[in-house]
């Protein structure tokens, strides 16, 4: 798998060297038979544009392991593939909201990261989390928030509100994007009308739907809009992820990230070893590896999200640890809620609302 085209090219060019090539192949074939713990392979399954290449290179060099990275676009896609079996992945990075489902379905290995050497670096605030209390299965990857991003050159008012996209100010109408992340958007609308995410209260759900339907004509798109659209100011506001907002602000300083006071979601993605992983020892090495502050900083620098590893700030880009997208203002902390996976009957209503919204 994933053979480097350059490698095969040199091999064909150096055809007379065939014996050397053969012995290399023999060595590779024999490798898994040896009792070596570290050498070999590791197959990582992660969200797209989420794994820093320098982190992978560093890990490969440190442990002499060949890492293969495969990317997915959503938790649902990832779970469907893993459940189907025969995937060959060792490591997956599920969001906090779906970790309990992974565990319930028996898809994750109880790898006991809490026993690992570098676990001492994990911020205690992120240890006894609701989805994996005591961290028996997962290690924090990054955390972030889903809020709103606004071009403050166009709109001067308060940006810490979901009104940006639910009761849009005149200046922003027609230039608003909403990410097609069904649960995030409907959760925010429910909080805006005074309910709790995953509520089964039909009056609240109806109010949220009506709010969304009324706001839709003011939106330009429901899309994973490319960063250029904001940088060029084709779009001036969006429901967005904090890390993405940070990347955009670096290229267009007019943009600012707001934490809606009515409610915004907090999330964390978590690294776990799959129950049917073939390279368990390497996977454990990787889990331990990313709990090292220097390595965790690599992840934050690349993704622009906070990690949960103490001491990693020192190794981050200087601007990052204090970036407004990373530091939740004290007075807005209480408005954050942890994203969860709704029960099936509520989920069905969510889907129906979303279908109505995007029909």
């Amino acid at each position, binding site marked *: 798998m994933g053979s480097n085209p350059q490698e095969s090219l040199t091999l064909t060019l150096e055809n007379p060297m065939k014996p050397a090539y053969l012995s290399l192949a023999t060595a590779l074939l024999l490798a898994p038979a040896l009792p070596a713990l570290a050498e070999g392979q590791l197959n990582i399954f992660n969200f797209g544009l989420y794994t820093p290449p320098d982190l992978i290179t560093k890990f490969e060099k440190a442990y002499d392991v060949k890492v293969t990275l495969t990317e997915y676009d*959503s938790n*649902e*896609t990832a*779970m*469907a593939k893993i*459940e189907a079996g025969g995937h060959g992945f060792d490591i997956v990075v599920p969001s906090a909201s*779906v970790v309990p*489902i992974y565990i319930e*379905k028996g898809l994750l290995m109880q790898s006991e990261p809490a026993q690992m050497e570098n676990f001492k670096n994990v911020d205690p605030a992120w240890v006894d989390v609701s989805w994996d209390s005591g961290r028996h299965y997962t290690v924090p990857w990054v955390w972030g928030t889903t809020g709103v991003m606004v071009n403050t050159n166009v709109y001067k008012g308060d940006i810490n509100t979901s009104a940006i996209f639910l009761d849009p100010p005149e200046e922003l109408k*027609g230039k608003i994007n909403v990410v*097609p*992340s*069904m*649960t995030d958007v409907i959760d925010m609308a429910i909080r805006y009308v005074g309910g709790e995410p995953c509520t089964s209260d*039909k009056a609240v*759900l*109806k109010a949220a*739907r009506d709010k969304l339907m009324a706001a*839709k004509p003011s*939106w*330009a*798109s*429901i*899309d994973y809009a490319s960063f250029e659209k904001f940088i*060029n100011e*084709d779009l001036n506001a969006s429901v967005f992820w904090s890390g993405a907002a940070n990347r955009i602000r670096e290229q267009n300083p007019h943009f600012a990230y707001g934490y809606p006071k009515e409610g915004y979601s907090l999330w964390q993605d978590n690294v776990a070893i799959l129950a049917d992983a073939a390279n368990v020892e390497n996977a454990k090495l990787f889990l331990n590896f990313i709990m090292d502050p220097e390595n965790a900083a690599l992840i934050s620098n690349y993704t622009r999200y906070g990690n949960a590893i103490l001491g990693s700030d020192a190794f981050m880009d200087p601007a990052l640890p204090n970036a407004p997208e990373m530091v939740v203002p004290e007075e807005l902390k209480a408005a954050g809620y942890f994203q969860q*996976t709704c*029960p*099936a009957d509520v*989920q*069905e*209503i969510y*889907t*129906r*609302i*979303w*279908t*109505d919204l*995007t*029909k």
Partner: protein
Amino acid sequence: MGEAPNTERDAQNADARQRWRLALPAVTIIMVFSILPLIVVVLYSVLTPGDYGNVRWVFSTEGWFSVLFERDIFDDTLSLSDAHLTILARSVGLSLLTTALTLIFGVPTAWFIATRPPAARAFWLFLVTIPFWTNLLVRTIAVQEMIRSEGVFNRLFLWLGLIDQPIQMMFTNFAVLLGMAYVFLPLMVLPVFAAVEKFDFRLAEAGYDLYASRLFCLRKVILPLVRPGIIAGSILVFVPSLGAYVTPRIMGGGKSMMLGNLIEMQFGQGRNWPLGAALSITLTLLVLIALIYYTRLTSGRQGRSHG
């Protein structure tokens, strides 16, 4: 007909058996890779959705029911599913319009190419096929580059003074239509070209000799003879348009779904695989209807021209 001797009938039977044996590999491949997956889809469409995606092995017609009907989320009244019907109508409507647009642009193009000298034809055909070398996604984004607010068209119109502020073209039905027509245009040009190329231009000359006007000649001589190509091209464009996914998603900005997007949603965020499967089969049935209509059209035509 006189009675065929027994030996001849035996030989015919043996021949038929031989043919079946020879066809077996093909039949097996069709069964395993075409019919079997379809059976899986049909099966999934009558199961119950699992809580977190996938299915539970409990029979249910809910998936099929939800294709066309819905119980109101809030007061449980039964009605036709407005959202699904809107999406269905949009899919069929935009696909028909796409077909019409590719006809308008594709037929003259094909005619132009087919009437060049043979050496030049190869060159023009080569130009038509170039887009096929490029990924669909890249081509769609290229169209987006043309029509976005800061895009080529808006800047040209602004420069010409035709408009004083950019027209919002992206994220509209027009954008979806333009994207699909562009992407599927070669599928119209090629079959029409094949039909026009076979056309015997002496027939048109004969028409002129009999004092037919250009328009009359086009209507009564040329069009009937290149019709199979036009119909084949229309089907080739209409069918993939119905199931288009990437183009509506990028050009439409996610605000107005087509069937392909609705199906994807059921398997993804919606976690309702049976409904997704039922919608997929609905789409297949729509295509089937279009194809039946196509065979009717072409076979009817041949019957008449032979008669």
